[in-house]
């Protein structure tokens, strides 16, 4: 770690990991309710648990992005952060807001737009935190060296914060409400967050593989160009059946098909950089997470997104377990795994020690990734059956669900593997040990080195 102020990232990462724990435990509980529906039904109903699951996810991913920005911007800009105090203040506001939201969900106080259920005061808190962040990070970047990485990162973060304005816009007309709701939801995960992801991935590749900055930066601009060119009009894939005009069926189908390209490019980028790179970085776990993230993002967002994005398919699959399958793998690959890559890379430096517990960390990668993959498969099978029985044959929803119970049982098993993986991951980063828990195998000599 070259700059003192980078250490604020540590607090961000700890808070993010705590919320990560809450998120996956909430998810596991929700998965259990699918198996055994009477569980807690009169104390904490399913909808409350799901709000905690999704909200905790979104906030911890954002905390991870903010922390990553505070970690990498000083290095890129070659100077200390504008204000460390502001960064901590921002974190406190976000944590108070999040825990406040979770508490108020538990006592039944919440809004009712999916993912945006936070009480108004929490929404304002997030807005204030976003303004503090943008000010702090922009002042740092403006005063220092400008690179393509900080450029793209900042652009993504500015735009995603600006889009938060739509969280406050809730027209009485349901169809308008839905249309503007997607300006936060879709334009986050399929436009602005992709810029953040690409920038962070670029930074990690630069550090882990030692490839020329010039090469990384050219890739970066090409990736983000394809992301926005496809992702903006790709919003149309949510405007098929909510009261919006019919032309979106064509615009949405065509442009959202192109959304596969940036994810394919990010995956190719990561592998080409590793292949070209000469550096043999000691943090193998961070490299595994980086490659894994871009690969799973390609499958979860790219392949599973394309699976149901054409309007002729979506007419039947819209709002079934197929959507759930895609949502889970896309979020995991693109944003969860990327954040875990950053934590894995940065934590040893933030704590001033060698990369440790790498074997455990890598085991957690395979456990979580295996679990998520299995979950995606079983939900896809469940969704296919559901689509056929309910949407084609016209059978009653509840009866169709009853015939899917085996899949839900397997989904719970997959979820349990993910939770164990997540706890293992947190342990491997948080608990310092003198020696590796498991000794790594002998280092392999690389030809030509």
């Amino acid at each position, binding site marked *: 770690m070259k700059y003192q102020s980078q250490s604020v990232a540590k607090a961000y990462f700890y808070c993010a990991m705590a919320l990560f724990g809450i998120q996956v435990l909430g998810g596991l509980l929700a998965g259990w*309710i699918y198996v*055994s*529906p*009477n569980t807690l*039904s*009169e104390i904490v*109903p*399913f*909808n*409350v648990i*799901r*709000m905690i699951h999704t909200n905790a996810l979104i906030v911890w991913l954002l905390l991870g992005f903010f922390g990553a920005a505070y970690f990498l911007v000083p290095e890129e800009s070659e100077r200390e952060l504008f204000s460390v105090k502001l960064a901590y203040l921002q974190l406190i506001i976000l944590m108070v807001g999040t825990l406040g939201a979770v508490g108020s969900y538990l006592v039944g106080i*919440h*809004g*009712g*737009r*999916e993912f945006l*259920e936070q009480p108004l005061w929490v929404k304002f808190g997030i807005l204030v935190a976003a303004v503090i962040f943008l000010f702090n990070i922009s002042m740092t970047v403006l005063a220092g060296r400008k690179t393509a990485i900080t450029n793209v990162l900042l652009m993504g973060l500015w735009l995603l914060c600006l889009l938060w304005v739509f969280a406050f816009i809730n027209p*009485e*007309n*349901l*169809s*308008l*409400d*839905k*249309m503007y709701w997607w300006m936060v939801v879709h334009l986050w995960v399929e436009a602005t967050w992709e810029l953040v992801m690409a920038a962070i991935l670029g930074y990690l590749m630069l550090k882990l593989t030692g490839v020329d900055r*010039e090469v990384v*930066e*050219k*890739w970066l*601009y*090409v990736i983000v*160009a394809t992301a*926005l*060119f496809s992702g*903006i*009009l790709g919003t149309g894939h*949510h*405007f*098929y*059946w*909510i*009261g*919006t*005009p*019919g032309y979106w069926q064509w*615009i949405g189908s065509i442009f959202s098909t192109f959304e596969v390209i940036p994810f394919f490019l990010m995956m190719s980028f990561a592998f080409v950089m590793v292949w070209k790179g000469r550096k043999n970085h000691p943090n193998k776990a961070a490299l595994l997470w980086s490659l894994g993230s871009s690969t799973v993002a390609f499958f979860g967002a790219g392949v599973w997104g394309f699976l149901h994005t054409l309007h002729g398919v979506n*007419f039947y699959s819209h*709002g079934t*377990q197929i959507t*759930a399958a895609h949502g889970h793998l896309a979020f995991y690959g693109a944003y969860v795994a990327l954040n875990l890559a950053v934590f894995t890379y940065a934590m040893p430096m933030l704590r001033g020690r060698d990369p440790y517990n790498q074997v455990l960390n890598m085991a957690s990668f395979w456990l979580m990734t295996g679990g998520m993959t299995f979950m995606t498969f079983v939900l896809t099978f469940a969704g296919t059956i559901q689509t056929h029985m*309910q*949407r084609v044959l*016209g*059978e*009653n*929803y*509840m009866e*169709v*669900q009853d015939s899917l119970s085996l899949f839900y049982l397997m989904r719970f098993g997959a979820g349990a593997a993910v939770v164990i993986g997540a706890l293992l991951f947190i342990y491997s980063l948080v608990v310092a040990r003198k020696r590796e828990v498991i000794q790594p195998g002998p280092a392999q000599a690389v030809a030509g080195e």
Partner: protein
Amino acid sequence: MAEILTKTRARNIFYGGSIFFVVVFIALTAQSHRHIVKTSTAGMPLTEQVALGKHVWEKNSCINCHTLHGEGAYFAPEIGNVMTRWGVADDPETAYEILDGWMQAQPSGIEGRRQMPHFEITEEEMRALSEFLRWADQTDTQGWPPNDAG
């Protein structure tokens, strides 16, 4: 990548193209906004009662179990066409009675069946909720869902 695509050129294409797509998107959004107000949701007036009903729907976070026009959670049935499914899309009084009867019967307590919670909803709110669901049902959703099962 060939030498023709320099970093500066890639960056300029990124900026220029993005601005172009943002402008197109804003124009189409404005047009869609008009379409929604003037055409697709114009089948039934958006009264204060309907607006109150939407508020009741939100206050109880129904969306985190159900889907509405296919969006939401996938734990419970589609609600966007429930009034059609019950055959009461054009009958406000019966719609209210069936909805009220349904809501009062929850939770069913049946072992092994997904449970819907009991909600504290006044009669005025329940009537509003029912009107909101009838209003949502008459939206022109391009023929979705494929059948009454939702």
